[in-house]
């Protein structure tokens, strides 16, 4: 167990990784938890009048949760190397995400395979570079979770960028070269620092995983005045 004072529990690499942003948030299109964290994060940021530095983080799910792929019927599992414990965790995660998603009218269908979402991450970086990150994720997340967006297809992602009003000239070439390099570098820097899941929040010198920590993040952003709050899913505070 760590015995450091509370204000020294987080290693300095998290603050370095945050950089100049007051709040940096890592997302992956294939994470339902990231999807349902976007709205409450935006709400908090708007109330505080701060900008969120959204960043892609492509999860390597098979490295910690095993692999699985659905059959063509979209229901039965065609192949998997997951243990019963891993399946239990995955199924719970989807049930949990769906319960909360349903409260805001979002659809979350289980994915048919574990996607390599790195192209979507590259598209996020393109959108961010164009200064229009939010419209892109609003365009991409809902259809992906309705199984209507093939994020392996660069053309599909290009169309999603266009629908979000983002100029796409040069995107294909950039995605295969400079964009890929930037994505991989962003991913590795975050992973090496200790980011392991999404949504991950970098604030002050701390890193938190999960939207249930938004009360603490808000408390930190407000200057740590008063008692530190407990965890809570922000949408349901009275």
């Amino acid at each position, binding site marked *: 167990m760590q015995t450091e004072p509370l204000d020294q529990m987080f290693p300095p690499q998290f603050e370095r990784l945050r950089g100049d942003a007051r709040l940096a948030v890592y997302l992956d299109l294939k994470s339902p938890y990231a999807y349902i964290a976007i709205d409450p994060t935006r709400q908090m940021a708007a109330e505080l009048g701060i900008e969120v530095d959204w960043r892609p983080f492509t999860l390597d799910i098979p*490295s910690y949760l095993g692999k699985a792929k659905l059959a063509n019927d979209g229901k039965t599992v065609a192949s998997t190397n997951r243990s019963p414990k891993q399946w239990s965790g995955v199924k719970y995660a989807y049930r*949990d995400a769906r319960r909360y998603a349903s*409260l805001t009218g979002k659809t979350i269908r289980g994915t048919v395979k574990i996607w390599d979402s790195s192209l979507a991450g590259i598209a996020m970086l393109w959108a961010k570079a164009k200064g229009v990150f939010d419209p892109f994720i609003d365009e991409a997340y809902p259809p992906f979770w309705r199984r209507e967006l093939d994020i392996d297809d660069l053309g599909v992602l290009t169309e999603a960028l266009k629908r979000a009003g983002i100029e796409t000239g040069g995107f294909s070439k950039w995605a295969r070269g400079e964009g890929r390099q930037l994505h991989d570098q962003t991913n590795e820097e975050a992973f090496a620092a*200790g980011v*392991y899941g999404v949504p991950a929040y970098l604030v002050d010198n701390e890193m938190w*995983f*999960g939207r*249930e920590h938004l009360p603490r993040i808000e408390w930190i952003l407000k200057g740590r005045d008063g008692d530190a709050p*407990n965890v809570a*899913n922000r949408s349901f505070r009275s």
Partner: protein
Amino acid sequence: MSASTEAREALEQSDETLVFILDVRDPFSYLALGPAIELSSSISPSGRSPIASSTSAASVDWLPIRKHTLLPPSTPGPGPEDDRSIQHRRSRAQMIAREITIYADVQGLTIDSPYRDGHADAAYTAWLWIRATAPDQLPAFIKAVFNAYWAEGLDPESGDEILPMLERLGFHRAEFEPWASTQGRYGNALARIPAGEGRHISGAGLLGRRRGLLRPAASAHDPLDSRRAKWNRTDLARTTRRLRGKATIQPDPEATRRAAFERDSLPAARCPNEEMPRP
């Protein structure tokens, strides 16, 4: 409207039993205990915990469980660099340790080390006995056991340590011991069911008995995952909404769990003609 008023009104309008499932050895259960008791008290303002009483359809129940315990972060070795899987688990374990320490501090709780092993059979037998005979006093007993375990070094597997605790709460050893050696032995087997693996319980948590499972998550997620526990102690407000009937109806995991237990966990010869202890 305050959260407690909202929760109480929600339960008054419901016919749910809200079940808190906790593991004494699980730090996320300890972090969830205070908010759970607070919610329980708001449901029953006297602080009592009516369990499926005939006069009140809305009720609270408390069940012990033995879940997988937390493992400490691995240490990078002098050899080749660890693979991504090991690095992922290490980062996650380090974050869990930070989360426990920080949120324990928020609640003023003492958690010297979250990495515990061993059993809690004696405590769980007493837990189930109080649940069956004096449910009003169950939250106080559970709170005493958790505090003594985490802050005072209580051995929850030791009858010699649990019996005095019962007596301090006004219970009589002579009434407890016969029960413990009969129904208690059977009921306690329930608590020894490892979490997960086809029983739809992946961690200590909340169980809306008729509408599905909410887990303590740890880090969300730990839902429930040890995170997930995440129970979610983060899900208490959500529970209130569920009790108001705003959630989708789910299969009854309690029935599933009980059926799995009865089918798999205890040979019939060990529990002849005995019912699971119920209030």
